């Protein structure tokens, strides 16, 4: 079925999904929900429970802690996984800077999603490692 073709094509260009064959990518596309946010809209909220997992498709978001900008994320970057994995509210706000399109997965569905798509989980592991390294002064 040529459902969702445009979204599948978009996802296929992201590093997170680089190892997925097309049928698996189609399944992923069906599981994720697209969202559109205007400039200034908060997507992830510091301290609020029940948040989800997001991947940026288009545009840029700013990661802010106590109002202070820490990072910018662009197409292909994901956020929100920390809060879900740790079972704690996010430690940062993530805010749209300009118009932003993302795909979203609800927190309760995240674990099953990772288990169903181990190659995605592995790519996430690599990216998390990269992030920890750059946040770290030394490697343990």
């Amino acid at each position: 079925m040529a459902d969702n073709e445009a979204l599948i094509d978009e996802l296929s260009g992201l590093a997170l999904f680089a190892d997925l064959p097309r049928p698996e990518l189609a399944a992923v596309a069906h599981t994720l929900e697209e969202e559109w946010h205007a400039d200034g809209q908060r997507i992830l909220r510091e301290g609020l429970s029940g948040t989800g997992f997001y991947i940026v498709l288009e545009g840029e978001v700013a990661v802010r802690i106590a109002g202070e900008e820490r990072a910018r994320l662009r197409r292909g970057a994901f956020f929100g996984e920390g809060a879900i994995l740790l079972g704690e509210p996010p430690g940062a706000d993530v805010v749209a800077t300009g118009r932003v399109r993302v795909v979203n997965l609800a927190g309760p569905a995240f674990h099953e999603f990772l288990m169903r798509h181990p190659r995605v989980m592995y790519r996430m592991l690599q990216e998390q490692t990269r992030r920890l390294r750059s946040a770290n002064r030394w490697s343990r």
Partner: protein
Amino acid sequence: MAMTTDEKADALGRVALFDGLGSASLLPLGEAATETTFADGDALVIQGQVGTGLFVVVSGVVRIVQHGEDLARLGPGDYLGELAVIDREPRSASAFAVGPTRCLALASWDLFRRVDADSSLSHALLRGLALRIRALTEQHHH
């Protein structure tokens, strides 16, 4: 006196990175891990060298040194190199034994094989990393 597989699995299990793993995941890792003894001053890893695995300190003390500067001390249950075990980047610091030190070494290719076969192991590593990133972010904030 050599460690049994159970003891090795136990030691690995106490590591935050492997928090939440059941014995089904830990035993194969314990099997693959090897025990190494270091004498005072011996290097576990050298800064700049390609990383090939992770070390869990079983007994003794390990000094972390970066660009000649002492960064930290690790004791029993602490570990180093789990980032290298995933991405094999060059070691960003050196580690030296302080006094006789026993470590469990887990080679990246052994961990890799297990990660490929065991989704819950992958998930636990992911979680462990998220924990560390969160802790670091809060540290920088304060």
